């Protein structure tokens, strides 16, 4: 399989949408208008999109506290998400979830997660459903380098391997868990070195290279769909912002972020690659940029004026029936 022109445009649009969404949230948060804990995915776009371009709406993903990118890569509505971040009644979760709990089951997005390591066991479940019902679907858990040290994650790896589940464990190593460097906290340095402990194939890719991520994920997805069991993928990505919005980031070296933005921006790299290869033109990409910018602008404008949930919403949605 090759990526068509439409695929490339879609991939770019999704990455661009993530970037713009996050850059804008960064700005809005700084003005104090956005409540809560917000963790931005800027810089890591090629990972989510590279993986999810291989998935259908029936393939499930589980995300993390840094979930906006995974949602958007799975085509969750950006406007609904922005409204959710603003705690609005018409937000994608009715304003009840917020940044860390965005889910869109209709798109195969099982939820961001405020608990690090919460997703991998859940993804075993989605994969078990696929296997039991013979749907041919796959399930993907996104986890960070910090989350790679959480017991629930390790259990899920072994569980998926033993039961030969159609699951893929994508570890986005962005160098940090909050302030803690992954080269310190992951005893084996590279997370991919853990694949053997679970008897599963492992692959490490440069997460600034959309094409590298896409093809590694493609192989893993095909193996999973074909009954070949789970794969561990480590994707090395830069983190452009702080751990959360408001982080002073003094634990990072001076100039570290500037250099990452300059030399390791997956969007710039993508643009360079596709234009040099003559697959897309700069004009094509500029059009996408403009469309996405307008989309995000409109989303924020709507979010700011949209109604808040009211007292009648407080006690609904706890149970299906009680």
């Amino acid at each position: 399989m090759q990526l068509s022109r439409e695929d490339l445009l879609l991939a770019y649009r999704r990455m661009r949408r993530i970037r713009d969404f996050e850059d804008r949230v960064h700005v809005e948060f700084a003005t104090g208008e956005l409540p809560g804990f917000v963790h931005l995915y800027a810089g890591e776009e090629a990972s989510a999109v590279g993986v999810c371009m291989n998935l259908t709406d029936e393939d499930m993903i589980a995300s993390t506290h840094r979930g906006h990118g995974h949602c958007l890569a799975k085509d969750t509505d950006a406007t609904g998400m922005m409204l959710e971040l603003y705690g609005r009644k018409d937000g994608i979760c009715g304003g009840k979830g917020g940044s860390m709990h965005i889910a869109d089951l209709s798109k195969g997005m099982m939820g961001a997660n405020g608990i690090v390591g919460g997703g991998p066991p859940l993804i075993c479940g989605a994969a078990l459903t696929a296997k039991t019902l013979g749907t041919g679907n796959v399930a993907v858990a996104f986890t960070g380098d910090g989350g790679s040290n959480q017991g629930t994650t390790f259990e899920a790896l072994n569980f998926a391997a033993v039961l030969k589940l159609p699951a893929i464990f994508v570890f986005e190593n962005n160098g940090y868990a909050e302030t803690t460097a992954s080269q310190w906290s992951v005893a084996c340095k590279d997370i991919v070195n853990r694949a053997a402990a679970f008897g599963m194939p492992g692959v490490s890719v440069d997460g600034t290279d959309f094409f590298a991520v896409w093809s590694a994920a493609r192989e893993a997805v095909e193996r999973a769909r074909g009954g070949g069991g789970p794969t561990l993928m480590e994707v090395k990505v830069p983190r452009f912002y702080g751990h959360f919005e408001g982080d002073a980031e003094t634990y990072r070296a001076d100039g570290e972020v500037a250099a990452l933005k300059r030399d390791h921006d997956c969007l710039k790299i993508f643009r360079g690659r596709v234009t040099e290869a003559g697959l897309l033109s700069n004009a094509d990409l500029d059009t996408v940029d403009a469309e996405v910018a307008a989309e995000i602008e409109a989303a924020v404008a709507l979010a700011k004026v949209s109604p808040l949930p009211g007292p009648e919403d407080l006690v609904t949605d706890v149970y299906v029936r009680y």
Partner: protein
Amino acid sequence: MPKKTFKQALNEAHFHEMRRDPRVIVMGEDISGGIGASGEMDAWGGSEGVTKGLYPEFGPSRVVDTPLSESAIIGAAVGAATTGLRPVADLMFADFLGVCFDQIFNQAAKFRYMFGGKAVTPVVIRGMIGAGFRTAAQHSQCLYPIFTHIPGLKVVIPSNPYDAKGLLIQAIRDDDPVIFLEHKLLYGVTGEVPDGAYTVPFGEAKVLREGGDVTIVALALMVQVALDAAELLSKRGIEATVIDPRTTSPLDLDTIVESVEETGHLVIVDESSPRCNIATDIAAQVADVAFHALKGPIKMVTPPHTPVPFSPSLEDLYLPSAERVAAAVEASLRTRKGAA
């Protein structure tokens, strides 16, 4: 009606529902037993044999033995539930919640609310509770107050074979996450159990005995203790109503309040540790909504605030006894309102 044990009743409930609905699966450590080994499969059928016989009929895709990894087991059950299956996961001893609690209380219990009503998580988590089995502090706890505390969970605690079967079938058909707790000392208890499938609704207490002097509320193993106490009291001229709530979340407070409005006295027998438990929960609710009806103090009969001891001599003292319940009733009746 045929007589069956509590364990058989639970076993039948599994068969009915697995035959009825292909989305129902069971999973857990040794849930069939013998996987990967060279002897028999279905060697155990769960640590107490509750799921015995399912494997031969439904095979490995619906009777899923797992590695020893409770977070993965419960998390997978929860994830499978949100994606179309109806898993019944066996936690074995409820005491093991400590290694998988996040998947229960932060994930399963909260999905529906956090996701604005869009998730449905029809998972049943079975666990054994209770003392008396000589299994000491880490295998004898009740822990249902912890589950009951968490919004989003339903908590079911049968006290007899009939209810066990009907409540488990209801739990499997229910669309919310259900914690289903089985007192180990009840597995061998027999009672009349229909052969067919039937449900016992959640949130409906059962009145096991009626008497006008005092209301005794009890769960699981303590129901029998309460009934024994009622017999003792009856000989002393005191007639008790005994109520088994059967589910603590939802809780049928109305039935309890109605009875207290007649009797004016309430005693709650709870095998769980005394602080923030079901006894305090019910007592407090009654002291609010039915305060006007109370003629004496609400008494709670519980174990002491200690871990469960191993030695049989201590464990027998640890558990509430009929004699202690009777004494509590008498104390409440003695200290009538205004008497102090």
